[in-house]
């Protein structure tokens, strides 16, 4: 029986002290201990209606895995999670739980929801630390599938296909696997060792990963079919093309896209003193944007020693970033200058000197019910800065589309795909950010799994 005298709030997450962690790149949160996890798990009411499960994009059987934590059988909990998710150590850390599984948790009606994400992370970390089990390599079924991109969608698709006996080759443009998990999300939020472990697991199952291969340049999709003998191709190439603001001053030295700034730091380890890849160590950095990417860029700049300000044209409530990231950013001393929209980057001798913003206010609610920002005529704010990081979104890279006949894209550049991930070209499937535009890890992973199922059906139908 659940104990109704339980604490109304979540067990707090142990974390590095804000004033220590804002100077290092080590993981911010430390994870629950066994005791904390079991205590938190007991807060779950095991609801018959399962609102939590309904709001997880991959419908993890949440009450059941939490029940196993209460029982102390963490491996059983792990098995339940991995029936639906192939990256629990990642998603437990980076999912926007407050707008997914934890959003409608019964416990949240009075007090705080159950810390589902933290529990998921606990289970995955426990498994990764204790399990010595090697994956079972299934008998080959004689069919070959190519996967483009090694982000969450590609990894998930490859994993499910490999489990069914397919020979899977992943082609990755960069020199390291993981997609955004490797080049975007910083070490202090998602240690790269976790990503590496997932990738190694795939390799153990016989998945071959070729890095440094840019599909559309090194090999085309046509060649994958005609010369390499793949029967189906999955495109999980993400949405990596950075958007700029098209305002004066964007080519000044000291202006970065968030992608460039984060890639230098995460992929190229530019924050380490022995790295030969340069990164600016700003004194005062202004970041524009309100999403996870903006928070990551801001907190990375902070760790390089900068005084950091985030400008965003809407208000606090509309910040699309995960709630925890915003809280962590504030604790770490990052300033928020909301209702400010950059209109010019002011330069001096070719370097950034200040960022001029149009002051905004919230107007009438629009069709979606959100109050949209409107300009306050004639009111501008200027923020001193030597570095300006643009973090206003990314779109899918047109490289594959431009080199593949028969692949249609939407107005926003996403590949056209049906609910099973089938594109407009026979045998070619797609999922994740390449289809939806920038979204979330769990959605990309889910799309990879859906496509894996569809690819299996496609190939089996053809074979029969």
């Amino acid at each position: 029986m659940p104990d109704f005298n339980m604490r109304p709030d979540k067990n707090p997450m142990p974390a590095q002290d804000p004033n220590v962690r804002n100077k290092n790149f080590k993981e911010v949160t430390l994870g629950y201990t066994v005791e904390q996890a079991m205590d938190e798990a007991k807060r779950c009411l095991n609801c018959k209606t399962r609102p939590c499960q309904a709001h997880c994009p991959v419908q993890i059987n949440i009450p059941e895995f939490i029940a196993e934590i209460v029982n102390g059988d963490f491996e059983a909990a792990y098995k339940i999670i991995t029936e639906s998710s192939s990256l629990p150590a990642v998603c437990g850390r980076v999912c926007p739980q407050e707008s997914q599984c934890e959003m409608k948790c019964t416990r949240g009606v009075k007090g705080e929801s159950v810390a589902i994400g933290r529990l998921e992370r606990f289970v995955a970390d426990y498994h990764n630390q204790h399990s010595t089990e090697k994956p079972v390599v299934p008998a080959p079924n004689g069919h070959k599938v190519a996967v483009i991109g090694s982000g969450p969608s590609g990894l998930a698709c490859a994993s499910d296909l490999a489990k069914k006996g397919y020979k899977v080759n992943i082609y990755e443009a960069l020199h390291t696997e993981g997609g955004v998990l490797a080049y975007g999300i910083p070490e202090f939020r998602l240690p790269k060792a976790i990503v590496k472990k997932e990738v190694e697991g795939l390799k153990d199952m016989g998945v071959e990963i070729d890095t440094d291969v840019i599909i559309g340049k090194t090999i085309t999709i046509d060649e994958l079919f005609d010369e390499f003998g793949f029967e189906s191709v999955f495109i999980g190439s993400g949405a990596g093309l950075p958007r700029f603001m098209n305002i004066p001053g964007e080519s000044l030295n000291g202006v970065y896209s968030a992608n460039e700034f984060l890639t230098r730091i995460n992929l190229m380890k530019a924050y380490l003193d022995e790295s030969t890849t340069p990164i600016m160590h700003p004194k005062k950095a202004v970041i524009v944007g309100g999403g996870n990417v903006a928070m990551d860029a801001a907190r990375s700049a902070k760790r390089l020693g900068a005084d950091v300000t985030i400008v965003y044209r809407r208000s606090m409530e509309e910040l699309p970033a995960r709630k925890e990231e915003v809280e962590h950013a504030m604790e770490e001393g990052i300033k928020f200058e909301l209702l400010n929209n950059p209109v010019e980057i002011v330069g001096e001798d070719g370097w950034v000197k200040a960022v001029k913003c149009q002051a905004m206010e919230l107007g009438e609610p629009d069709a979606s019910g959100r109050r949209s920002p409107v300009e306050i005529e004639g009111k501008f704010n200027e923020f001193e800065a030597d570095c300006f990081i643009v973090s206003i979104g990314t779109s899918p890279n047109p490289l594959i589309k431009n080199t593949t006949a028969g692949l249609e894209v939407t107005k926003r550049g996403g590949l056209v795909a049906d609910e099973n991930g089938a594109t407009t070209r026979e045998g070619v499937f797609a999922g994740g950010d390449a289809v939806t535009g920038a979204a979330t890890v769990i959605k990309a992973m889910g799309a990879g799994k859906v496509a894996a199922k569809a690819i299996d059906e496609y190939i089996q139908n053809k074979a029969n």
Partner: protein
Amino acid sequence: MFKIVKKQTLNPTVVLIEVEAPLIARKAEPGQFVIVRAKEDSERIPFTIEGYDREKGTVSIVYQIVGAGTEILNSLNEGDEIHDFAGPLGNATKTEGLKNVAVVGGGVGCAIAYPVAKKLHEEGCRVTSIVGFRTKDLVILEDEFRACSDNYILMSDDGSVGQKGVVTAPLEELIKNGEQFDEVIAIGPLIMMKFVVLTTKKYNVKTVVSMNPIMIDGTGMCGGCRLTVGGKTKFACVDGPEFDGFEVDFDEAMHRGTMYKPFEAHARDEACNLLHKGEQ
């Protein structure tokens, strides 16, 4: 891993390596480039493809040792393996329909210009190669250029070889004397390309330049390679690296190239430490 099958010193700081990269060799065209990471944890460095052998499955690049990254690359020898070698990236040089072209190369840029001159020559185009170096010891690929040029003009800053002077002098003289170039292709230091464009603009001779901004991914993902061309932002790695010289904002490009100047000295020291560690 990509094995170095041949390493040849062209001048004291310029080296050619031929690398086993069969997938890239199948596709490479003049004007395209590769991104190279010498060792695990090295920097990603773009280099133009100097040559390729589709049958042998090899690709050659020519690099000048200028800083930490190229120093580490140069520590590898024949038989060693390069950690990452990705490409071919960027767009190939457009040579179609060209009948009379001046290829202007400066310094190590000549290594990038050479495959272009060669391809033009093979396609039956009249090729005038104007190449410039600081001094005699730095001259590279002279025989190769001569073999594919109808007219080969060698310039040096100090007059120690060829004619004394800069590449724009003979270029302007030829144009003045009535040489009808369909196009001038200029590849070299930004300052040289800027002056070539200033020269050809006067006579309205179409000029293509090969830009080499700082890059990371080379696939359009970081925007670090952006340039202003015709008032618009372009990514050199996917929209270029070749652009209409009349449209390029050279002053901005030169300034952006200085972004990491203070860092480079530091990186050089780190590279020295690293290389010496390896020797002990």
